[in-house]
């Protein structure tokens, strides 16, 4: 048996080639979600300061669009950037994303600035998790953001 094993070891290739499936771009940054969430925040502010019906209708429509983008960007971070081994550094990861994406749904339906602010805070926690797992060094091109 030993001889066969040795023989096999001798024959085994040293080089691995990939019959490659799926290719994530590898660029992730919670800032993308944060910017859309800031849009929601500012729109809620503007909504409160303007009584015009047409303006308010547009504001709500735009807020829903931006909120949908926040949800998308959070989902991409959750599904594609974070890996099971990151749970060691961020044990509350799944709960955090659950809260954050649920908060997005709240922001969609709400014109309360406190809801939009809470979403920003949750995204900042996601950002902290991203940094704690080396995201800023690993996932951006040429060291951005500075």
């Amino acid at each position: 048996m030993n001889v066969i094993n040795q023989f096999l070891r001798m024959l085994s290739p040293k080089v691995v080639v990939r019959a490659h499936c799926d290719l994530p771009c590898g660029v992730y940054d919670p800032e993308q979600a944060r910017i859309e969430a800031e849009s929601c925040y500012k729109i809620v502010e503007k909504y409160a300061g303007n009584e015009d019906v047409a303006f308010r209708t547009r504001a709500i429509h735009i807020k829903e669009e931006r909120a949908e983008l926040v949800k998308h960007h959070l989902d991409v971070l959750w599904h594609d950037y974070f890996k099971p081994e990151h749970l060691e550094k961020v044990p509350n990861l799944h709960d955090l994303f659950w809260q954050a994406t649920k908060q997005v749904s709240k922001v969609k339906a709400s014109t309360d600035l406190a809801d939009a602010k809470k979403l920003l805070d949750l995204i900042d926690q996601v950002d902290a998790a991203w940094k704690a797992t080396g995201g800023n060094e690993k996932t951006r091109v040429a060291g951005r953001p500075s």
Partner: protein
Amino acid sequence: MGRVSAGPWRVAVTEGSMAPAILPGDWLLVNPRLTAWPAPGSVVVFREPLSEALAIKRVEAGPGQQVRFGGGFLTLADDEAWLTADADEKTAAAVGFGPPIDSNRFGPVSLDDLVARVVFRYAPLRRVGRIAPRPSEGAAA
């Protein structure tokens, strides 16, 4: 061109985009002494654009040929080939992998990134032999 790769002679395959002709775990003999793209239908090892990883795909079209792309046609340059997966999304999923990555994603591959041509499978024992043609081509031939 006189280009001779210092590439490997034996490679092990991971991932499933070449199923069913080549499966993860296959050990292949390859010829790294190439000076030009081999004929369409050949399976090649190459340095994948974007990822820089060593990858394996089949030559669908060679230098100067036209390929369908993005609803139109693309003419390959005189050092380029179009490399595609054998497996479609469903076949890749059946062996446990995501959608295959090939030239439809990373574009034409330059001769500079060609590493070797696959010649023969020498393991596992029950699959020893030449590489089957692309499933659709096999049916047409």
